[in-house]
């Protein structure tokens, strides 16, 4: 999508129920969903953000540069964690609210949203000593309140440092409601632990027809997956198509446009780059994209194929181990549905 000075750069913090509807915004000209909160003016808090993610939401909010504005789209609790302008309507009402929020805050920076977390480092740097880094050389101590990485065996038999990160819950390349705890050596995943939450109740209506509902869900997944692959123009086209899928839609026109979209995706070379990547249950990421496009077309056509359940979570995690972080993100973006697993199981 071309970047114009009037684009509203939006960072998204979506609950599991709102992540799909938010993908539709990729198809709206004038709104740009950015990958990092640092590039955004407006934070869109959408749907039901679980209470446990309150601090994460506040941190994402604080990571937007000032002046910033916040728009809440159908929040479950009236924006308990961040003060926001609340929208209860559909996509168009949200886009209008995002535009207004940016215009207001740029005209008068004093009306921007203030920091929510304290501006203090977890631990001030004081050099070597009981309160500083506390170690010699590169090992030991807790610089800035974080322990140094410990070593572990790598695939070449060397002992190298392991960087431990938890990505999510509002990490742009991850599907909604996901947290991915990884142990990295260099850019290679040594361990992966995935936590998926589903929303207790969905605040956004789906088409009553099962085929249409599935097609729209997968079109939104596809829009996100194309964005993760860096194909934002195709993502915008896919999102615009997803937004057209309603019970009143002309199914024949949708099927025709979906075929055209499938051709564009195949011509983009995306499937070629994903050959042999992230094989789960004998199907690689390219195969899953092909299945996804077929299922969308079938759902719109009215004949649903027998749905295979989501891949078993340990199989997904096993596939991620040994991949680079980029491949892992591409693999997760190619999976249509992930098994839900409660946050208490294993990862912090």
């Amino acid at each position: 999508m071309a970047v114009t000075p009037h684009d509203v750069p939006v960072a998204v913090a979506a609950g599991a129920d709102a992540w799909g509807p938010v993908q539709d915004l990729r198809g709206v000209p004038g709104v740009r969903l950015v990958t990092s909160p640092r590039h955004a003016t407006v934070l869109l808090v959408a749907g039901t953000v679980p209470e446990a993610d309150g601090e994460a939401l506040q941190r994402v909010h604080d990571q937007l540069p000032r002046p910033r504005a916040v728009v809440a789209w159908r929040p479950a609790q009236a924006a308990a964690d961040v003060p926001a302008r609340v929208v209860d309507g559909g996509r168009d009402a949200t886009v209008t609210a995002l535009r207004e929020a940016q215009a207001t805050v740029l005209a008068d920076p004093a009306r921007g949203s203030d920091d929510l977390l304290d501006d203090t480092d977890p631990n001030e740097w004081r050099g070597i000593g009981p309160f500083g880094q506390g170690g010699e050389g590169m090992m030991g101590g807790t610089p800035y309140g974080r322990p140094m990485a410990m070593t572990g065996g790598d695939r070449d038999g060397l002992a190298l440092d392991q960087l431990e990160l938890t990505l999510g819950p509002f990490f742009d390349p991850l599907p909604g409601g996901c947290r991915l705890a990884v142990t990295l050596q260099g850019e290679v995943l040594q361990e992966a632990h995935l936590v998926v939450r589903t929303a207790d109740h969905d605040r956004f209506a789906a088409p009553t027809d099962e085929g249409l509902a599935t097609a729209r869900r997968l079109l939104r997944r596809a829009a996100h997956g194309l964005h993760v692959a860096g194909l934002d123009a195709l993502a915008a086209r896919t999102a615009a198509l997803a937004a057209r899928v309603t019970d009143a839609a002309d199914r024949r026109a949708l099927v025709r446009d979906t075929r055209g979209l499938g051709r564009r995706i195949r011509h983009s070379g995306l499937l070629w780059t994903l050959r042999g990547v992230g094989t789960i249950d004998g199907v690689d990421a390219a195969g899953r994209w092909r299945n996804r496009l077929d299922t969308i077309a079938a759902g719109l056509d009215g004949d649903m194929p027998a749905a295979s359940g989501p891949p078993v979570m340990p199989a997904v995690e096993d596939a991620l181990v040994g991949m680079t972080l980029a491949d892992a993100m591409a693999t997760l973006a190619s999976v249509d549905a992930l098994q839900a697993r409660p946050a208490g199981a294993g990862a912090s």
Partner: protein
Amino acid sequence: MLTAFLSSLTVSVAAALATAACLVVARRTSPYRSTAPQRVPVLGGLEPATHAWSRFHVRYYPMTLLFIAFEMEMMFMYPWAVVFVEEGVTALAEMGMFLAILSVGVVYGWREGAFRWQ
């Protein structure tokens, strides 16, 4: 002698002072200084568990070693070919010494598995 440089020294000191003054004023007055949460890497709301200061394997290094060994060889051999016509055996002996030193790097790369196709 010193007076020749006096003007440039004056300008340099003035520029350094002006830059420092700008930085100090910006730091004191800007409402948009980055805060502690903004200095944390963006992970989607969470903080990293460990410090990012970690060592990792530079996997392309045997390849780089070989490239430098052979590239340095070729870089000196082209001009050497011209000199060899004039100097004869002396140039040959000198190039032999140079290649002997370089080949230590190649042998090391061999031991590290740089020639293994995988």
